């Protein structure tokens, strides 16, 4: 062992969590309220205006007034003083329960998770058992045995409630055990106890606070419930639950008395509950990847309608013009910017680019299936002469399935896991043909045979998890073909499949396309698939189309540095034995898009002027456009290339 990793590097210092909670508005309010409540109750003997037991018979059941801020009860006792004094026993009860909870759950959870094996199995089995105890009955038994001692009841409640916290702590300890710095600490010879308290415990802190504050909310509910049943301190001692019971006996004459104890209990329970939520949110944020700098920036004004080539051949089926898509929210973002291309009937167009370039978003915009917070901000998607924006649901349904259909990347995720294959395909058949029963069933079998599934009857009876990925993609294609669509949108249809299965699925798509004269928009990042299937290529980068060309031109003379870089980085174009020439850097996220050329930072032809202003698309020849002001230099180097 030559090097030992530095064992002191631990994630998220404890001050970070506390500060994040206190700086969030909800967290600040809740913590301030709880602090105030606890302080006021603790100081009740000093600050309460009256003795909680003193009866003011001249002011019985008076509503709120100058001398009795919250009014008085039926014996003329001041309600504010009783709330403050009553809080002492309620909050103290919660403290007792929480202490019992922590003392039992934390060590058990830590050692079960950290040691694993038999200790873990036994602990978890006991925890599982305890979780099905009728807790309230045990509390009543305890109260009965210990002569209405609230302390024993609350301690019992803490012990019985420990299973939940124990599980959470165990999970965190289990995860911590795998961490490098914990292993390192072990190697350095720290004792078990030291490792656990110094390295494992701090990791569990966030989840522990969440569990403890949610438990405190429940414990307060139980404590007030038991005092409501007068199972706690005997009257006339003030308790919150007891005050509700007092009010219950006279609500015919005075309903107001219900309000002070009820609202106090509700607010206190709520405060504990919300505190748990806030800590959970903060914790989740801290554990998520460090968020990128969130610059708020306006969308670049699209540089006017750029030239878009008319389709190469045949009648125009789909035409996307200057399409911009934005995500609404706290920081509105432009996700697609001035996207345009055409698809003719029967044609296959490849949509190419790295992850994050906007291919899938474009495909979803065409289907009208943008994510919840996204919308088409400008531009048009025209299908068969009709713009699809502004179509109502019904009109969209006329289109989807019958004229445009889709298959997606993960064939397994594309099939509803709760239904059999036959019923899923029949669902789409029903939607597009309106047929049911025998007719629908016959069509389902026809479709399954069409996608060359060997034993359609048997497959129809299976659930999605019972078939292979390749088979699932065939089923997904069968569903897409049910409505005999004119355009199929295939979002990386083979990426998730084995190489041999990929070839089969591509063959199937090609033959189906020929038979049905169907156009395909093929989203992919595989140039082999493009060469195999497509007539035309649309290259996207950072939400923009950077090049459109027919497939032969793209491979011979790419007209955008990004296209060239993508082609060079393709495994198909890498000579055997050489490293893949990956493009340095990554696609910038939408919030980091520069105002000039978005590829400039990764481009070897970039000049200062590339970064100055938005680059417009230029038509370079028939059927070709490029979004590059250095296209001449690029084509020169291509020509002079050996």
């Amino acid at each position: 062992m030559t090097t030992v990793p530095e064992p002191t590097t631990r994630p998220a210092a404890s001050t970070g969590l506390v500060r994040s909670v206190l700086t969030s508005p909800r967290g600040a309010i809740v913590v301030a309220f709880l602090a105030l409540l606890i302080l006021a109750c603790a100081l009740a003997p000093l600050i309460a205006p009256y003795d909680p037991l003193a009866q003011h018979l001249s002011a019985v059941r008076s509503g709120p007034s100058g001398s009795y801020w919250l009014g008085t009860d039926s014996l003329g006792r001041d309600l504010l003083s009783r709330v403050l004094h009553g809080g002492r026993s309620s909050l103290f009860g919660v403290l007792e329960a929480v202490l019992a909870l922590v003392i039992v759950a934390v060590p058990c959870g830590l050692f079960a998770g950290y040691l694993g094996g038999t200790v873990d199995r036994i602990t978890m089995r006991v925890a599982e058992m305890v979780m099905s105890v009728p807790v309230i009955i045990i509390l009543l038994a305890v109260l009965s045995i210990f002569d209405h001692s609230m302390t024993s009841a609350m301690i019992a409640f803490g012990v019985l409630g420990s299973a939940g916290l124990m599980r959470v702590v165990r999970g965190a300890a289990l995860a911590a055990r795998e961490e490098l710095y914990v292993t390192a600490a072990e190697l350095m010879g720290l004792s078990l106890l030291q490792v656990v308290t110094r390295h494992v415990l701090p990791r569990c802190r966030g989840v522990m606070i969440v569990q403890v504050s949610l438990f405190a909310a429940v414990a307060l509910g139980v404590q007030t419930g038991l005092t409501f049943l007068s199972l706690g301190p005997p009257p006339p001692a003030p308790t919150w639950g007891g005050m509700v019971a007092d009010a219950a006996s006279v609500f015919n004459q005075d309903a107001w008395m219900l309000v002070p104890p009820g609202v106090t209990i509700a607010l206190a329970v709520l405060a504990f509950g919300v505190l748990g939520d806030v800590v959970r949110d903060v914790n989740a944020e801290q554990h998520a990847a460090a968020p990128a700098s969130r610059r708020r920036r306006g969308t670049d004004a699209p540089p006017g309608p750029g030239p878009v080539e008319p389709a190469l051949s045949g009648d125009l089926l789909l035409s996307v013009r200057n399409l911009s898509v934005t995500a609404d929210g706290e920081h509105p973002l432009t996700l697609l910017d001035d996207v345009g291309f055409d698809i003719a009937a029967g044609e296959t167009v490849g949509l190419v680019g790295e992850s994050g370039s906007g291919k899938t978003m474009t495909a979803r915009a065409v289907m009208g299936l943008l994510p919840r917070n996204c919308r088409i901000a400008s531009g048009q998607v025209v299908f068969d002469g009709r713009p699809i924006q502004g179509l109502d649901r019904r009109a969209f349904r006329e289109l989807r399935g019958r004229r445009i259909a889709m298959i997606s990347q993960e064939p397994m995720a594309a099939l509803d896991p709760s239904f059999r294959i036959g019923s899923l395909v029949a669902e789409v058949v029903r939607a597009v043909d309106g047929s049911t029963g025998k007719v629908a069933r016959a069509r389902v079998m026809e479709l399954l045979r069409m996608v060359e599934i060997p034993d359609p009857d048997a497959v129809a009876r299976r659930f999605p998890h019972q078939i292979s990925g390749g088979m699932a993609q065939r089923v997904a294609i069968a569903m897409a073909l049910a409505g005999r669509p004119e355009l199929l949108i295939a979002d990386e249809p083979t990426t998730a499949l084995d190489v041999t299965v990929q070839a089969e699925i591509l063959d199937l798509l090609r033959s189906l396309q020929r038979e049905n004269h169907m156009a395909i928009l093929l989203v992919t990042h595989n140039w082999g698939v493009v060469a195999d299937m497509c007539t035309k290529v649309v290259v996207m980068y950072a939400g923009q189309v950077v090049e459109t060309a027919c497939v032969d031109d793209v491979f011979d003379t790419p007209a955008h540095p990004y296209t060239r870089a993508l082609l060079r980085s393709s495994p198909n174009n890498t000579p055997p034995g050489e490293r893949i020439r990956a493009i340095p850097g990554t696609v910038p996220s939408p919030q980091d898009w520069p105002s000039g050329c978005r590829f400039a930072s990764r481009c070897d032809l970039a000049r200062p002027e590339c970064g100055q202003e938005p680059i417009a698309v230029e038509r370079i020849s028939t059927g070709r456009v490029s979004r590059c002001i250095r296209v001449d230099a690029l084509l020169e180097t291509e020509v002079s290339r050996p």
Partner: protein
Amino acid sequence: MVKLLAHRIALSIPLVLLVSMVVFALESLVPGDPARTVLGQSATPENIAALHQQMGLDQPWIERYWNWLSGLFHGDLGTSVFTGDDVVTELNTRLGVTVSLVLCCVIVSAVAGLALGLFSAVRGGPAARVVDVLSLAGLALPNFWVAIVLVALFAVKIRLFPAIGYVEFAESPGHWVRSLVLPVIALSLFGVTAVAKQTRDSVLDVLDTDYVRVLRGNGVSESRIVLKHVLRNAAIPVVTVLGVVAVSMLGGTVFVEGVFVLPGLGTLATQATMDHDLPVILGIGVYFTVVVIIINLLVDLAYGVLNPKVRAS
């Protein structure tokens, strides 16, 4: 099914044994005379001696425990130290009330919670905020307080429902329903909101899945997607929450039954605690445990029906 049942019972038998043993052990450890605690300070020595005899306090606790346990296997839970009634008979007459109450609450929680959660997930906006506010109220307001407010509003101010009392279903179904409306609302408020919140979260998750997108993309109507595919898949986590809610409502009967003077196990449990009547409390504990086992078993079964992967394995 048999395997599930066996697993649940295997888990619960040691539990009942352990918990009851602890109760007997604790009772013997507590200083003072349990018989005097039951009878109060004014009891005569003869009375105390008689109760000693009845409670078997002359024997060591382990022997008393053994007697109780062998009784349990013969369906005998002893007699109440306070009234001298047979515990099993007493509990059986009251079981119907509590089961009716909890069953109605589970149904209301499931139906109202699913509807509310589904509506707020599909509609979003204001509907979602209403569910948020409601779920805060459901979490925060203690059920016994809600119960009193409901009585004040809908039984006293507007005389819509009876304030107290219970009518057997066999006697008059209409009155049975009327006697249960307010208790069910008070007790299921928490359940409705918990189910609604879980439904909304899981419906939003399912709406964002690939398979819903594919169904939409291939022309299946929105109503069929939501009512068939989304509901079915979202129901799986909801069932788990419903089980937790059912168990917590069973405990909640202890607080709520008393307000409406329903003659169920909850009021009996409160009374028995006041009277230090351990045989009755232990008996209720056994009954509640059985109900909890049944609830967990039903959840497991529903899980199997809803999730084909569980069914297959």
